[in-house]
């Protein structure tokens, strides 16, 4: 029995002038999996994410999401298909409240037309009330309800990260891409984050793909790990296989290194 994988990447490559940032990248992610991509700085991890969300058009290759090739679609369509992401350097709507951030992310669930909006028909009123409840309930599930009316930029760093996660979840994604979710966190916060990520996968039934530097986090929670360096895939496997993989150790620590 072979179900269509939620994400399938064939021969993906992108070239920026003279730099082959990503080259012949293959990847398969099954529904419900928690995949991790690791690699040294500048290995092309974020570039892969940018191609998976339509920000960079790839030079070669295909991206199949639920069996459909989505290369070439505009960024917002990637989100419509069901891919959501967070950013390495948080990109919240800083001047808006946490609640507004979530409300904007629920945009695709709005079903009234422009003319109804202009005349503020009762259907608008109704949908807006529902929307407010949906957003508050989502904030509540991620224990962010107390910050609902705080300006995003005024929130503590860890809370901003969580809010960005909540905002990505608000688009009701099938695949959630996390770009260095543990960046700038202390060990306790990373521990907490591991739990949160696993909880999100089960609670929201999303497939998760994450990029991370933080080895421990990746090793602890990912079902399988892909290692890239200089835009190329160098290893793939379960955490315990990656831990002892010679090519990986070399990429990270140089020859003769040991984790």
């Amino acid at each position, binding site marked *: 029995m072979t179900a269509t994988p939620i994400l399938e990447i064939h021969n993906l490559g992108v070239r920026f002038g003279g730099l082959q940032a990503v080259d012949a990248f293959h990847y398969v992610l099954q529904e419900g999996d928690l995949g991790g991509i690791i690699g040294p700085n500048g290995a092309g991890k974020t570039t892969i994410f940018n191609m998976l*969300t*339509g*920000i960079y058009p790839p030079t070669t290759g295909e991206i199949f999401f639920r069996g459909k090739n989505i290369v070439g679609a*505009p*960024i*917002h369509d*990637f*989100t*419509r298909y069901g891919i*959501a*992401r967070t*950013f390495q350097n948080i*990109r*919240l*709507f*800083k*001047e*808006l409240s946490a609640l*507004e951030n979530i*409300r*904007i*992310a629920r*945009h*695709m669930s*709005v079903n*009234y037309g*422009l003319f109804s*909006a*202009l*005349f*503020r028909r009762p259907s*608008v*009123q*109704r949908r*807006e*009330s529902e*929307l*407010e409840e949906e957003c508050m*309930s989502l904030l*509540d*599930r991620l224990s962010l309800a107390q910050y609902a009316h705080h300006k995003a930029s005024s929130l503590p760093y860890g809370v901003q990260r969580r809010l960005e996660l909540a*905002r990505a979840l*608000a*688009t009701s994604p099938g695949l959630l891409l996390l770009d260095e979710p543990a960046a700038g966190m202390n060990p306790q916060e990373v521990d907490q984050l591991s739990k949160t990520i696993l909880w999100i996968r089960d609670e929201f039934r999303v497939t998760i793909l994450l990029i991370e530097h933080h080895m421990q986090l990746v090793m602890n929670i990912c079902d399988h790990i892909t290692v890239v360096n200089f835009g190329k895939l160098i290893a793939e496997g379960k955490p315990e296989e990656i831990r002892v993989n010679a090519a990986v150790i070399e990429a990270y620590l140089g020859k003769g290194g040991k984790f």
Partner: protein
Amino acid sequence: MSGSGTGVNIDIFHKLKREARRCSPLIGLAVFYLAVTYLREARYLKAYYIQVLMFGLINCMVTMGLNLINGVTGQFSIGQAGFVAVGAYSSAAVTTLLFRFNALPSIVRPLVFLLSILVAGIAAGVFGYLIGRPSLRVKGDYLAIVTLGFGEIIRAIIRLIPQVGGPRGFSGIPRYVNLAWILIFFALTIWFLRNYIYSAYGRACISCREDDLAAETMGINTTTYKVQAFIIGAVTAGVAGALLAHLLGYLHPDQFSYIRSTDFLVYLYAGGAGTISGAVVGAMALTIVPEMLRFLSGWRLVIYGLVLVLMMLYRPHGISNGKEFSFLVPRLAPKKTEEVQEG
């Protein structure tokens, strides 16, 4: 959802209260109109003051349109006077060239006038699309220059059309507009723009302002909303232009130069970009203040400039400071207390 007798009563009471709240701005406007008319009849108010008031209201409308483009959607357009020109000239063409307004029986005059406003709105909207669409390839300062250029093109084209007077100006436009007409359209503008801004559409525009890329990754087609903002902002300016044409009775291309566009920008940023209240307060205050300073003759513009400088220093977010008058913010239906909260 079963309500006891008292529950129903409370429901009706709340409903009435909500209706009263909903209508209060309208009632306020009607009272304002009656008060001004009374004072005018009683000769407390000179016709000149009412003229200033009418210009102020028209400026408010234009600035509210600009607010949608610049303040809400975060695009930097400085061609707003161009849209006003399109509206003014096209509506004047309807009432002057298409119909002989003054020869019409007085019953059809309002209809023809409304038609001319419709034409003005559509024409300005088309120009808004034409300018908004290609302009989206550029951002920030570059967009400003493109819109400036488009505004000037509109003015240059008007000069080339002899039917509307070309460089001599367009005269003989029926002076049909009075305070009542202007107040009606002023109220409609506020109502429509408020409904737009406080809907998902307005939120999408705000997200374009806050962070384009993040907005796209929320599934928002930012191009659509930027163009939409341009079109709605232009339509607003066009309708205001139609009122202006029929208030003045005479139009000249130089009335719509980029200096005029800058005026609208100043109104907006002095009042507070991003809020309807800011646009209205800014445009009204900065239309009235220079008139009040007329007794200073030459020093008038110096003081006006000084006021602007001081305001930007001590109140950089404008008079409204990012706050909206509460009656402009639509309220959501009250929460039903019986409903069980989902965890």
